[in-house]
């Protein structure tokens, strides 16, 4: 029950601060762009749009979310409440995953992706991956600019190989990279699905462990430099 309330609270927070409005506008823009593109480009373009925006929203917004929670002393309250670190992380992951998947489906449908299920799974895993990355960075920063500059190298490492993969550099070894698996799934490829999901799960478990360690430290020093 506690986790449901946490997720509901996070969704309400995201709605209040305009995430849903922003993504409604961006979805309309992306769909319009897809419709003006030639048919042969649409699938790839939709995959890049979903991978780089709704799926990656965690790495864009997490710094601001955690810093606001710090400055409004929400983290102090959570730290002394029965909420566990894992529940806090899960709530962030699930709430952002929800909006990512909804936006992902809205972009995928007009693009005519051949396998909607694979695309949805890819978007969901992508969202979880980037939210965990965002949480790891956010737990270690004290300003938004610091978050941005720390997140940039992660974004380059996460975005470049998948785009190379999508444009033909599709060596099997590239599928060790989580971003390549995610973009492959988003573009509707369900070949070796279980193997790819197993690799992705290993990445997510590893990221979760790192995020858990840092978030726990953050709770122990609740408030950080802004207090």
């Amino acid at each position: 029950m506690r986790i449901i309330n946490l997720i509901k609270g996070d969704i309400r927070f995201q709605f209040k601060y305009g995430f849903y409005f922003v993504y409604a506008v961006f979805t309309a823009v992306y769909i319009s762009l897809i419709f003006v593109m030639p048919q042969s480009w649409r699938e790839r373009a939709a995959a890049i749009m979903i991978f780089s925006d709704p799926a990656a929203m965690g790495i864009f917004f997490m710094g601001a979310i955690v810093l606001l929670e710090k400055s409004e002393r929400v983290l102090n309250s959570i730290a002394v409440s029965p909420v566990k670190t894992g529940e806090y992380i899960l709530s962030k992951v699930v709430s952002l995953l929800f909006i990512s998947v909804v936006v992902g489906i809205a972009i995928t449908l007009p693009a005519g992706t051949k396998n909607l299920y694979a695309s949805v799974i890819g978007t969901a895993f992508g969202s979880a991956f980037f939210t965990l990355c965002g949480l790891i960075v956010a737990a270690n920063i004290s300003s938004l600019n610091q978050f941005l500059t720390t997140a940039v190298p992660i974004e380059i490492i996460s975005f470049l190989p998948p785009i190379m993969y999508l444009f033909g550099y599709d060596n099997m070894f590239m599928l060790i990279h989580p971003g390549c698996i995610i973009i492959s799934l988003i573009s509707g490829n369900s070949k070796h699905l279980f193997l790819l999901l197993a690799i992705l799960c290993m990445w997510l478990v590893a990221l979760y462990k790192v995020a858990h360690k840092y978030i726990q430290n953050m709770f122990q020093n609740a408030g950080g430099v802004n207090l």
Partner: protein
Amino acid sequence: MTHWKYKRLSISFMQYINQIARDAMLFLSCLAPVLYGLFIKFGIPVAEKFLTGYYSRKEVLVPYFLIFDLFLVVLTPMMFSFASSMVILGEIDDGITKYMSVTPLGRGGYLISRLILPLTFSFVVSIIVMNVFSLTINSFEIIIALSFLSSVLGFMTTMMVVSLSANKVEGMAITKMSGISMIGIILPFFVLTRIQYLAILLPSFWMAKFALEGKITYLILCVMVSAGWILLLLRKFMKKTM
């Protein structure tokens, strides 16, 4: 302006510079235009050569080289505008902006040190970057005019973020939305009918029209539309920080 006013402004500006230098944002703001400049100066001509061969056409990207230049000229002010927005949002959340307004620096001085001075610096960087990397613009006067307009756009973007958002999270959402205002740069190149005039309220549209046709009227319209937005947003910001 007296010596003391200069001193206050320079102290506040140095605080800002220290803040963004500590976060490596200053380095990133200067590095990004250089990297993009290198990309368009050396990468785009190679891409053009490849594409003309691949599609057996005389030119593929050449008609759009000016778009790459326009994104180059707006990149530096946008990076500084983003850095300023994040600093101001952080300071609003921490209550520093209100404290500043009751110090001798005042709200005006605060905005000058956090916005005007960084954008003046970015104006100079834009001119240098455009002179070195521009693909199509050779006229120094046009480069100065475009760098000035892009600094005005940067000012407007920062005002939009800090006036319309109540905190960092809303600020990030509005930062994302403000990216759409840059759509005006590509519209005159792709929408050739009168429909393009639906974007008359976007200063970036008039900037692109000025770069494309060189008419001074478009430069004036860009400044006027931007000034209208800035005044509106400035009033909102002043109310918010009272």
